[in-house]
């Protein structure tokens, strides 16, 4: 008898039996992974849908004085004289005198007079709003509802995101409110953030990458920066409140510079907010700039030293120009983080209701995200619509910033390869 290999050494049958089961599991799980990924996309689409759905839609208007009772034809088409007559008939003498003082009615254009008639006489007011999807698919029901509940109201389609929304200041009346003050506030704040954090961040990165030797102090600095990047943003807000708003109040309110009245000024200014956000993004800028500097090939530095350049000359003329696209990419991403940040600014004390544009570092301010927060926390539907429209503005701003960062990164990569 010849020695046979026992069949149990390789359980072929068992293996074959097991195989379909294993393949089934594999297919199942592959589907699960795929669905999870699709989930991410669905969430993003839902988010966009949710915002867009509230930014456009039908609106029921009610007029204090119905326009057709004023004239036989649409008000926009009325000649100047007619509009003046309407104003003189319907506005109290006091108000009329004030308007004349601002600018004589005669001297105003037809559009200006029309706007005045709308504001002073017709006084449209929003009584109810509907979302975009409802406006499209339930138009009939909505019209019935309006006819039943608000017999003298008008139904019109309104895009909450319009030119007027972008150029009007904040207002307590949702039909007039806009985001100009908030956008300007965001820009001022971010300008100060850049001026403060960019030089300091790049300086720190250059020190850590080019100068720092491997000793305990530098290791602590590095670890510390990594930890700072993980500190919740609201903590920076509290730091800003304690240091910039309170301790440095004479500086941040502008009293030292004679830019503000000592009696009314306080530290809750654009400057405090910009510096607070600067502290917040500083670790991010440092870490990104470090990576960019690290990516500059050593041969460049050695070539520069070989030609007799000093350390700083090497850094200034060779390392930094080569690392610049990377540094800028990181900085842009950090800046877009700063623009979207809300919590620290609420703590630092952004004004929630302000109608005058910020004019400098010592102005009171509000920013776009704070405006959204404020509108979202109000119970009326109209303000939710405004919050949605402002969200679109904010996201377009951030996406274009991020897109420019991505483009910059790709161009830099091509240049290094080329």
């Amino acid at each position, binding site marked *: 008898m010849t020695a046979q290999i026992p069949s149990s050494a390789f359980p072929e049958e068992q293996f074959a039996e097991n195989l379909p089961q294993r393949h089934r599991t*594999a297919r199942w*799980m592959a589907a699960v*992974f*795929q669905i*999870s*990924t699709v989930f*991410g*996309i669905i*969430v993003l689409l*839902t988010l966009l849908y*949710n*915002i867009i759905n509230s930014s456009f839609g039908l609106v029921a208007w009610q007029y204090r004085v119905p326009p057709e009772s004023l004239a036989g034809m649409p008000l926009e088409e009325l000649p100047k004289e007619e509009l003046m007559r309407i104003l003189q008939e319907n506005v109290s003498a006091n108000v009329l005198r004030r308007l004349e003082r601002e600018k004589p009615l005669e001297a105003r254009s037809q559009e200006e007079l029309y706007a005045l008639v709308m504001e002073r006489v017709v006084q449209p007011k929003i009584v109810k709003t509907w979302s975009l999807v409802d406006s499209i698919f339930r138009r009939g029901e909505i019209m019935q509802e309006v006819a039943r509940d608000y017999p003298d109201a008008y139904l019109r389609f309104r895009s909450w995101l319009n030119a007027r929304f972008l150029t009007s200041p904040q207002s307590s009346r949702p039909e007039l409110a806009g985001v100009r003050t908030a956008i300007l506030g965001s820009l001022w704040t971010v300008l100060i953030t850049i001026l403060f954090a960019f030089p*300091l*961040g790049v*300086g*720190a990165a*250059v*020190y*850590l990458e080019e*100068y*720092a030797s491997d000793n305990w102090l*530098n290791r*602590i*600095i590095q670890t*510390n*920066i*990594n*930890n*700072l990047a*993980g*500190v*919740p*943003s*609201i*903590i920076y807000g*509290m*730091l800003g409140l*304690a240091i910039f708003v309170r301790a440095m109040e004479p500086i941040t309110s502008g009293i030292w510079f004679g830019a503000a009245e000592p009696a009314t000024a306080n530290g809750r200014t654009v400057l405090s907010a910009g510096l607070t956000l600067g*502290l917040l993004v*500083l*670790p991010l800028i440092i870490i990104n700039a470090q990576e960019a500097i690290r990516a500059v090939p050593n041969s460049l530095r050695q070539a520069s030293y070989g030609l007799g350049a000093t*350390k*700083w000359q090497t850094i200034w003329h060779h390392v930094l120009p080569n690392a610049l696209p990377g540094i800028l990419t990181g900085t842009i991403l950090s800046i877009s983080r700063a623009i*979207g*940040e*809300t*919590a620290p600014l*609420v*703590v630092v004390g952004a004004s*929630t209701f302000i109608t005058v544009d910020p004019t400098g570092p010592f102005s009171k301010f509000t920013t776009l995200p704070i405006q*959204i*927060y404020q509108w*979202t926390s109000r119970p009326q539907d109209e303000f939710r619509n405004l919050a*949605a429209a402002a*969200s679109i503005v*904010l*996201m377009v701003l*951030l*996406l274009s910033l*991020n897109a420019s960062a991505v483009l910059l990164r790709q161009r830099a990569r091509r240049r290094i390869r080329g």
Partner: protein
Amino acid sequence: MTNGSPGSELSAGQTISTALPQLYKRPRIREAIIQAILFLCGVLSILITAGIVYELGKESLRFFTRELWESTNKPLAAAVDASTTTLEVGPAGTSLRPGDIIRLQDEILRVEAVEGNLLRVTRGVKGSTPAPHPAGTEIFRADRVSLAEFFTGTQWIPQIGKFGILPLVNATLMTSVIAMLVALPIGLAIAIYLSEYASERARSILKPIMEVLAGVPTVVYGYFALTFMTPLLRSIFGRDVVEVYNTASAGIVIGILVLPLVSSMSEDALNAVPRSLREAAYALGATKLETALKVVVPAALSGIAAAFIVAISRAIGETMIVAIAAGAGPNLTFNPFQPAETMTGHIVRISGGDLSYDSIDYNSIFAIGLVLFFMTLLLNIISQRIVRRFREVYE
């Protein structure tokens, strides 16, 4: 013109030094100054941390040493003039003990001894001036927020001097746990799909989408939670079960917020696993799934764990979503459909109003902030330790 050689121009007024060049290093003042400035930039980060700890610590210290005047419900039984050192309280005696600090109107007194319903006191301590008080003046006892009360108290009601942080911590943990239930499994699945399954083309589409998701500002997520997630939950579980403000909706949306963070950090960890490991697994007859779950994921475990911990820390510190969607008002509840205010939500709400700098509210948010800071710091340090300690180094 003597000769046309170029060297002649040089010799016009100068002598070419024939001495050896000086071979020692010359001090370069400019370079030294620049280096010093750059060093200061680096040190600034330490100052920021020191500033955070100092400011939070200072205000927290004030919070814990501040006197809260608590009514004893025992009015003076008889009028006293400015020099009497014996106070008569009601017939039922008093709960005061020797050494207690009490207050009558604006005067602060120290109790020296208690004899039945007579209090022997020192008048006018702590810089206050003794003054006469009529009968019926209410006696207030000085109370402080003790550390034990702060960390174990189950009520946070500043108006009546109750400062127990548990309701706030509980709400923070609830939203974070819900967020992790969403973000961890889905984030890991996305990471596995992107690194093991997706084609190059799919990756080039999916990765930017995840980046966009990561770039959405938190306040927009807050809006999303309030106007989409909450109505969705209410239509699923019923309007009488789910409140308008609740921790479940905030938690789920925080989970969506940290999803890109989890997936991109985990994917980096999975990508760092060398190809040879996968090929070895395939050679042994493993399916793609078995390779991914039993070889690649364990090999990348340290990176994945670090991603999870960073995500938890992010969820704990997240503010705007909970401020908008989780409700205002500390509430110790384990029901995710009830409103409950988190630590961050409370800080934002209190500081959003007109906050007086010399109030217990102002001090209290710094105490909460300090707890929050140490919680996230601890998590971040653990995550860095894990990466350094357990990283599998290949090659």
